């Protein structure tokens, strides 16, 4: 049947002059390409080797390559329409590899894919389908860039992108048009030459523009650091993080040159969306500009002209940028690397940052409170001390041990564990895991904290840890690995979800049962997260009357995914399962992988007032708009940020409860030990 369909026309003979011209053009085009690409490659290869890089295990790399590059899954999933349009272009390029090779070969009479043969004919039709989709796709992308103009693409119109789109369109159009003429027709030759010229013009443009991602990003995706937001260890006595060009590693340089400037990172960045200086795309382009101007052997500082210190310290390390990036750029290690460079050399001067560092140099917790306060809390709450016989070590963390709201969460979680008959104990002494200093780039204090904690856990023979704080969980499990082998650890959402079927569902009330059960009324605690009193323990022991019997009200709960539980740990369903014990779940517009940060991460909850809008207020407004009567959290930092945001809102703010508190709601009264 295919014989009735038109045949692809290609010129049969080429004159000596044509052969000469073609050869000359190919050489010129290849030279134009290599002139720039060779330079880029040299800059990447001349960068420092990544000290901790291992190609193995290779399985995950292959999978990422197949899924993200070949299937274009990330490109499509996060922006379906333009993603699909891009995928059509990409798949057409793949399909065209053979066609293009043959296109060039026919000049010298060594064509291998005859449009008249059965296989050739089939393949040409196959490619034609892709060409059709590609033409539609590239036209769509053109319309998007030049007419729709989403702000993430930047204020400047990229004319070279328009030109590239035109070239791709011409390539596809000439290919498709060739089906409608005969081989002998002179216009076949014309079409062939237009196709050739478009192709040879396209090639040298690639390395000069963001279209370099065509060549680099498959490698970038394949050569990732191996896990999400992974902070590489420093190597040797002269490595303080990303200080100058000599500190840029091959992966950083490769990633900087891979950026396709799509702006997805910026679109999802909590800092960029609340009027701050930080724009993750510009950070990557700043590194690229540095490499272009100065190269990887320069000892000029990375921060200053090309990237700004202020911007770098506005990152909450929520990882939305890295998660979204379709070309495999790992923003978090780069941003943290720049911070390390500034902090490890003492270049960063910030009164709140210094205060945090000094508190952790000398003391045990990030809040700068006396550990005696933690002891008092443990006594008052009658938390058992870990003695090696219990199954779990309940890690309190700074928030669980010192913050009034964090303590409520611990109290609720302890109640549930008591109910379930789980044996657990808390350490007599605990130091901060080092999460905020790790993310702010203070490797000295981080190392001290990690080593002291690892030693204490080993001395106490701790095998399993459970914690209410995703930041503690992440830091203990991943970041401490640099200094030893941490015990197994899980987040309380994972623990609770495992026992969800053993926990009673609650007939919901609008009152907070915790204040009754724990015997403390924390509701008057100071609440501005950055005020000195905010995190001070304010335990009132005045007896609180039992809540009046209230009618069950339909409870709508919106769960906020903490960055360090979701994107960092891939835990999305467990906290929802737990929260649903207490009511009906609704979702915020941005949830699960696309959850919007509360603003606390990356040590930022300890720094001064934000510029622009507060991240926490933006997210809180989004949660309130769902109409939920309760906001469920699974991180004491998120909780603290929203507590402040809701206080600012005043009347009508929803109730704010951790999933542990939601799980404890249904327990019979008096279950506390």
């Amino acid at each position: 049947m295919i014989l009735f369909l038109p045949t692809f026309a290609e010129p049969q003979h080429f004159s000596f002059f044509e052969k000469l011209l073609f050869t000359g053009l190919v050489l010129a085009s290849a030279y134009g390409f290599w002139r720039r690409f060779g330079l880029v490659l040299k800059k990447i290869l001349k960068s420092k080797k990544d000290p901790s890089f291992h190609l193995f295990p290779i399985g995950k790399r292959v999978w990422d390559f197949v899924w993200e590059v070949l299937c274009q899954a990330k490109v499509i999933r996060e922006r379906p329409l333009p993603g699909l349009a891009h995928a059509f272009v990409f798949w057409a390029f793949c399909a065209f590899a053979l066609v293009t090779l043959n296109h060039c070969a026919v000049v010298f009479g060594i064509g291998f894919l005859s449009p008249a043969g059965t296989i050739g004919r089939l393949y040409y039709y196959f490619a034609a389908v892709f060409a059709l989709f590609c033409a539609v796709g590239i036209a769509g992308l053109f319309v998007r860039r030049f007419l729709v103009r989403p702000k993430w693409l930047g204020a400047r119109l990229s004319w070279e992108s328009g030109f590239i789109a035109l070239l791709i369109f011409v390539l596809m159009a000439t290919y498709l048009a060739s089906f409608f003429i005969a081989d002998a027709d002179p216009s076949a030759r014309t079409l062939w030459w237009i196709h050739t010229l478009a192709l040879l013009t396209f090639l040298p443009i690639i390395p000069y523009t963001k279209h370099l991602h065509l060549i680099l990003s498959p490698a970038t995706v394949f050569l990732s650091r191996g896990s999400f937001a992974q902070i590489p260890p420093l190597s040797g006595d002269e490595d303080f993080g990303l200080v100058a060009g000599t500190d840029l590693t091959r992966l950083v340089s490769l990633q900087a040159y891979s950026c396709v400037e799509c702006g997805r990172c910026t679109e999802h960045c909590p800092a960029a969306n609340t009027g701050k200086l930080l724009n993750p795309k510009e950070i990557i382009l700043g590194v690229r500009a540095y490499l272009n101007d100065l190269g990887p052997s320069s000892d000029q500082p990375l921060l200053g002209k090309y990237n700004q210190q202020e911007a770098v310290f506005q990152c909450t390390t929520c990882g939305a940028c890295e998660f979204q990036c379709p070309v495999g750029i790992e923003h978090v290690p780069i941003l943290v690397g720049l911070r390390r460079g500034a902090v490890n050399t003492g270049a960063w001067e910030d009164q709140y940052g210094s205060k945090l560092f000094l508190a952790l140099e000398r003391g045990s917790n990030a809040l700068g409170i006396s550990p005696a306060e933690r002891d008092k809390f443990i006594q008052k709450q009658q938390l058992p001390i870990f003695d090696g016989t219990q199954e779990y070590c309940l890690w309190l963390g700074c928030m669980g041990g010192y913050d009034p709201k964090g303590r409520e969460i611990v109290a609720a979680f302890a109640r549930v564990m008591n109910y379930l008959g789980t044996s657990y104990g808390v350490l007599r002494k605990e130091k901060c895991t080092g999460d905020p200093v790790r993310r702010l780039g203070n490797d000295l204090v981080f190392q001290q904290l990690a080593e002291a904690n690892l030693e204490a856990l080993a001395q106490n023979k701790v095998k399993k840890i459970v914690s209410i704080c995703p930041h503690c969980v992440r830091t203990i499990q991943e970041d401490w690995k640099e200094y030893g082998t941490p015990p197994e650890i899980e987040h309380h959402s994972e623990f609770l979800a495992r026992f969800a079927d053993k926990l009673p569902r609650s007939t919901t009330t609008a009152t907070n049962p915790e204040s009754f059960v724990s015997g403390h009324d924390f509701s008057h605690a100071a609440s501005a997260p950055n005020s000195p009193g905010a995190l001070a323990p304010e335990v009132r022991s005045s007896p609180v009357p039992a809540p009046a019997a209230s009618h069950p009200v339909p409870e709508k709960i919106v769960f906020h995914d903490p960055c360090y539980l979701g994107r960092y740990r891939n835990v999305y369903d467990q906290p929802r399962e737990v929260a649903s014990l207490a009511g009906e779940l609704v979702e915020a517009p941005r949830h699960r992988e696309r959850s919007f940060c509360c603003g606390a991460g990356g040590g930022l909850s300890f720094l001064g007032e934000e510029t622009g809008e507060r991240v926490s207020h933006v997210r809180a407004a989004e949660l309130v708009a769902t109409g939920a009567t309760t906001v469920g959290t699974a991180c004491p930092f998120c909780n603290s940020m929203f507590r402040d945001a809701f206080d600012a809102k005043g009347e009508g703010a929803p109730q704010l409860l951790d999933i542990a508190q939601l799980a404890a709601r249904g327990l019979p009264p008096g279950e506390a030990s």
Partner: protein
Amino acid sequence: MKIIVAIKQVPERDAQVRIDAAGKWIDESNLQYALNESDAYALEEALQLKEKSAAAGGEVVVVSVGPERVGQTIREALAKGADRAIHIVCDDLGLRDALGVARLLAAAVKPENPDLILTGLQSEDLGLGQTGVIVAELLGLPHATLILNVEKTETGLKVKRELEEGWFQTIELPTPAVLTIQSGGNKLRYATLMGIKRAKMKEVRQLTAASLGVDAPPVVVLEHVALPQKQKSTQILPGTAKEAAAALVEKLKFEVRVL
């Protein structure tokens, strides 16, 4: 300007202090140590003075008395920016009185011929507040205490002293001099990884009481140390309500002094 900073290593503020078996000193096992707070401010003041007159050059030398573990605190001081250190190794610091320690410090500092000697106002463990002053006396130098701020002048120094109830006193004195520094006058800097790595290459000279030729028995002998007793006492005031109330007011006024 060559500045000597005398620093002391003290138990960490959060440490749970226990008394040793003999009751003569604290049990030092399992104890975490840190730099005495006002000494940290003395070091900060010295570093800032050096940085302000960077063109003129200068040197900050830390000196400390104590056992091997003091080396850790000395390294931290070097990491924050001190140029070199003198460690007077001595295992019986608990038995030495302020005069004894000051004699060791004075003997070690004297050959250095410094322009300025700074130290913290007092230590967080014994809190005698005398060592700096005695060093000045032993070296025959002028001194000033409770200093919040030091300024270099043409002829010497202008310093700000903290008095009671929010009053300050500004005085001038010639150099060389000894100043004891009050906490809170400056913002402390944080230790950096680069500082710690660089500190490894800095000189720490170890001396002993014997090598300094200082060996005199203490003038003040520590009898025993004890933890403060927690006391709770209840007193019933007898009499009629009126008499009891009058007695209560009396006690609140003159015994508890809250009225």
